[in-house]
């Protein structure tokens, strides 16, 4: 079966991701706030996962899990974009699974990254149920698949800003070694 790496596992299990199927940042070069290197992720339960972060074209990154196990070698293409209306250290992250079937070519997942400096960041990962109010700020509702699918960039950014203003605390932390 297609395996999905850890970053997206939680939202996919509950089918509660914030996502688009229109690639709203298709032509946008993303910010590169970090150097390449080894990344340590700590989840809300204290579990630590290791990744390799590499810069690729168009300002994107490729983040690949380096822990030996089922998700070894799995990863994401990441892009970071400013969130209009939010402080400059708060960025939109866009994630796309590196390994995906053809039907998911245009599927992208979103959340917020709070930058703590050149070597650290925290992730605010939205949930379609728990953050329904922020999703509704752009008129977006939970779909039949359980996910919140945003129609376009404007809708996505409106809801992400509402998410930031909701005061939701980051649950995942990242340190670049």
């Amino acid at each position, binding site marked *: 079966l297609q395996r999905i790496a850890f970053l997206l596992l939680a939202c996919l299990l509950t089918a509660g991701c914030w996502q688009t199927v229109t690639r709203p940042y298709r032509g946008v070069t993303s910010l590169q706030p970090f150097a390449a290197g080894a990344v340590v992720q700590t989840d809300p339960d204290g579990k630590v996962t290791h990744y390799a972060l590499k810069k690729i074209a168009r300002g994107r990154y490729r983040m690949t899990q380096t822990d*030996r196990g089922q*998700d070894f070698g799995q990863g994401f293409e990441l892009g970071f974009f400013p969130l209009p209306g939010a402080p400059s250290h708060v960025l939109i992250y866009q994630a796309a699974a590196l390994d995906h079937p053809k039907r998911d070519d245009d599927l992208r997942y979103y959340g917020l990254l709070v930058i703590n400096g050149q070597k650290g960041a925290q992730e605010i990962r939205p949930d379609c149920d728990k953050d329904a109010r922020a999703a509704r700020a752009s008129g977006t509702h939970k779909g039949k698949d359980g996910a919140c699918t945003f129609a376009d960039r404007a809708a996505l950014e409106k809801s992400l800003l509402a998410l930031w203003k909701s005061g939701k605390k980051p649950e995942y932390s990242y340190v670049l070694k």
Partner: protein
Amino acid sequence: MRTPSIALLFLVAVPVQAADFSDPMPRYERAGAGFGCHMSKQDLAQSQAEQRDVCLHIGPLFVGMKRGDAEMLLGIPVASVPAGAREAFAYRLQSDTTGRMNTYAVLTYGDDGRADSVQVTGTPWPAAWTFAGVTLGTAQTAVTERLGAPMQTQKADDAGVVQWNYSPWTFSFEIKDGAVSSIRIAKE
């Protein structure tokens, strides 16, 4: 060129698995007498930007990968052996309960520091990196279902192992006890 010296260090038993054809792209698919690289628009853009065959990958390892990137993922090599005029480097992917390495990758690098061959060998393992829908442990019947019969076969150095070549395409497999025990891709 295969790397028999490293292969002999880590003899393995290979349970048979069915192939999973829901594997991701890009991937080679049989097209008449040959193969086509089935890819997305993004893969095509990547192929053009990096000027490489994006279908030549086993999981995250690909022909043309920088050594530094490979070793950021795989760690430092655990062994190296001469491979022609150069060296082949072996990297641990999995060890058994006794700590003995039973799944590993072997890479050779060109003068430009990029991988010109990638080989994954050993027992099936949880990460199950695939090439064209084939992974370690895939049944040989599933390989032929997906890729057709090999263009050539020959006995490998290891007892009971047969090498399946698809030349002039630059990928091959080793088959042991009816299942894939090794996958190799190369620049040429």
